[in-house]
């Protein structure tokens, strides 16, 4: 037994020494990530964190301040539609952070809210205004969205980041933090070599991975503004969403329940919620039975939510025509200024209401 324990001790010592050297070298060669004062998940690809979920998970520690904040949440249409710098410029009294993550459904949005709450003091939570972009894709059922062969059953993209570096432990009751949330900064420092290596490896293998995933090259804003969709492309998009949402033609009741519970939790802590009714092209809305069911459900739901203290609703249907979308769901860059102004109009009074005794 002594020999085995000695060998374990020697191995652990070697691990510590080697990792210490790697940490020092990585910090010397690549400085720690500077994400700026305002968080914007759209900047994730150019950061050390690479992906939106990892960016949101790792950077949220700086939200623990007693300053009024608008925290934008949702899927990729919230990233494409509400550019953080544009919105920030119009609401100088608030810190604007865009923590939207592409491919999110409402469960993942709720998880991001939980991640923010766990690093904030009760006082800081009172200063949050969560802007949640609603559309039918956000209500994709967990079974269709998160049960894929490449992940543990039901793990969201945020869950994957929770477990990736051992910050959380998987249990039958869900994710349990191993690293106290208050020590997130230390955790990010300790995994610096991995962040550097991940970034380097992904940069080096990008072409190969794009080939394997059959991804097309990214397009510029100018190209995006000029997009005109063919009927064949529209059909392909409709097929994609039918498949993506598991062929469902009704919104899952659980998703609505998660949204209600999320609003309850935020408001109970003194926070505010702005629900943005995100538009999609008419051809998409008319071609999807799930979108039609969503419209029925949400038209009944939003008036009731609007009456609740701390909750506002922003209708966006009139802000974009079919020609204002570069694909089936994302607005063209030329539209985002208009959208930012619409959101700012809601955020500014909300902010003054909150700060007025």
């Amino acid at each position, binding site marked *: *037994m002594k*020999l*085995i*324990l*000695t*060998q*374990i001790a*020697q*191995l652990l*010592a*070697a*691990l510590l*020494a*080697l*990792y210490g050297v*790697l940490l020092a070298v990585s910090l010397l060669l690549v400085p720690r990530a500077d994400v700026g004062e305002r968080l914007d998940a759209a900047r994730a690809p150019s950061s050390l964190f690479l992906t939106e979920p990892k960016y949101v998970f790792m950077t949220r520690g700086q939200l623990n301040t007693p300053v009024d904040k608008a925290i934008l949440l949702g899927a990729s249409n919230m990233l494409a539609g509400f550019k953080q710098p544009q919105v920030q410029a119009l609401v100088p009294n608030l810190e604007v952070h865009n923590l939207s993550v592409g491919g999110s459904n409402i469960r993942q949005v709720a998880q991001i809210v939980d991640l923010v709450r766990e690093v904030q003091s009760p006082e800081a939570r009172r200063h949050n205004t969560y802007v949640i972009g609603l559309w039918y894709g956000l209500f994709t059922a967990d079974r269709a969205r998160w049960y894929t*062969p*490449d*992940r*543990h059953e039901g*793990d969201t993209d945020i869950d*994957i980041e929770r477990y*990736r*570096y051992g910050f959380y432990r998987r249990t039958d009751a869900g994710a349990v933090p191993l690293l106290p949330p208050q020590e997130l900064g230390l955790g990010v420092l300790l995994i610096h070599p*991995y962040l550097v*290596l*991940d970034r380097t*490896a992904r940069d080096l293998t990008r072409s190969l991975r794009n080939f*394997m*995933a*059959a991804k097309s090259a990214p397009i510029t804003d100018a190209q995006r503004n000029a997009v005109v969709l063919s009927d064949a492309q529209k059909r392909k998009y409709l097929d994609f969403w039918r498949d993506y949402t598991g062929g469902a033609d009704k919104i899952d009741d659980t998703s609505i329940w998660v949204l209600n519970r999320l609003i309850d939790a935020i408001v109970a802590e003194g926070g505010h919620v702005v629900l943005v009714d995100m538009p999609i092209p008419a051809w998409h809305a008319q071609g999807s039975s799930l979108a039609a069911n969503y419209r029925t459900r949400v038209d009944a739901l939003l008036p009731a939510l609007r009456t609740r203290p701390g909750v506002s609703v922003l209708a966006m249907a009139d802000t974009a025509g079919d020609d204002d979308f570069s694909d089936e769901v994302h607005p063209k860059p030329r539209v985002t200024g208009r959208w930012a102004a619409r959101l700012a109009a809601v955020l500014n009074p909300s902010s003054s209401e909150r700060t007025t005794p």
Partner: protein
Amino acid sequence: MAFTSLTFLAFITAVVLLSSLWPTPAGRSAVLLVANAVFIGSYVDRVVQLVPLAVFLLVGYLAIEGVRRSRSAWSLWAGLAVILAGFIVLKRFSFLGESLTLPFSYLIVGLSYVLFRVLHLMVDAKQGELPQRIAPLHFFNYSCNFLTFTAGPIQRYQDYAANQTRALTLDEAQVFRAFARLIRGFLKVGVFSAIFNYLFDNMSGRLLDATLTPSLPVFCALVVASAVFYTIYLYANFAGYMDIVIGVGALMGQELPENFNRPFLARSFLDFWSRWHMTLSDWFKTYVFNPLLTVLARRFTSAQAGPYLGVVAFFVTFLIMGVWHGTTAVFVVYGLLMGAGASVNKLWQVVMTKRLGKKGYKALAERTPVIYLSRGLTFAYFALALSCLWLDMPQLLSLTHRLGVAGVLACYLGLAVATGLAFFVWDALTSAVASWRVRASAAAGGVIARNLVLAFQVLLIVTVASFFHKAPEFVYRAF
């Protein structure tokens, strides 16, 4: 309990430390009993799910004891029939339909390997190689040894018993070797198998995507790439698992048999199977091939028929071995391909030996181009045949229909030539750096250096694990 989980690491740490705390045969047996129970219990939610396995073990034990006492042929055949029937029902072979299905979910992991051990004991009992009754504790610890429960290696009972009667004594070098083996196993599973699994998933995803319609050459390339990635993934996964259990076994005083011996050096299909899943091949050689050949030799006594009897025996043996891998029709195809590979290989040996003589055939086989072409042909055949393990029957039919005979041949020959060349280049490179490797090994011999090497491997495992969402499962668990 997944082999790549922290739970398993904690489990084996506890078992190894407890085994060394009670190093006597009785102490180690007691620790092993508890470890086996905990390990198997980790696969189920309810005790009732263990009942079929428990009944299977009990029937097996009674059958072995019955055969051992009577040593009669009829008791052996009766025992074999009962055990095989029970196995087929419990494994839910698809040809049974729904008629003989138990009405609840239960544990089937490890059943195939329990079967091998029970059959081995039954035959050995008949042959008088089990002079004494096996104690139930030893039977359970042998047949359900957590190290070999899931997918082998298939250890002989006599070897297991010899290990268990020795007191555990370890020296520093043995401990380090065991740790190095264990970490090498995790390296194979966590790094190489994870990477090739990722590549395989992506490539086969494109291959099986009905919305994509690539040209025939691109389709062939996708088939070949998927087959190669799956083969390397399977090897790294399975050989890594073996390294893990052999390393842990060494720390517990269990000397488990090796299951792999650099299979991609194989120059023929039969050579390949003497290097890949060796304990399975040995088992089939002992309990299927040899008895079958004996029966055939008794029936066909002509000297001319002699060499061809091996062809038939190989076909039948490999057919059964292939079919054993699964319960659906595609595994019959796999069995036929394995049988065809083995019998054609044997036939080639017979014909070429007749034509060139033993010396001439040996001289031909030792020519460098022939060596690498043989290695390429062997690898290509095995890799393409393995497609049966990742395709279902409709997918296999659709794929072969799309390829046609010309496409299949192009895939096979193209892959054979490409891998033959790759092996040649690899061998040239490794021999070029051989002296450097020797110097590096010598330099890494000190306590600090050798532990830094291990630590580097551990960091590599953790690094790759952080890249992927999910650690690769142990693939042979399914067979």
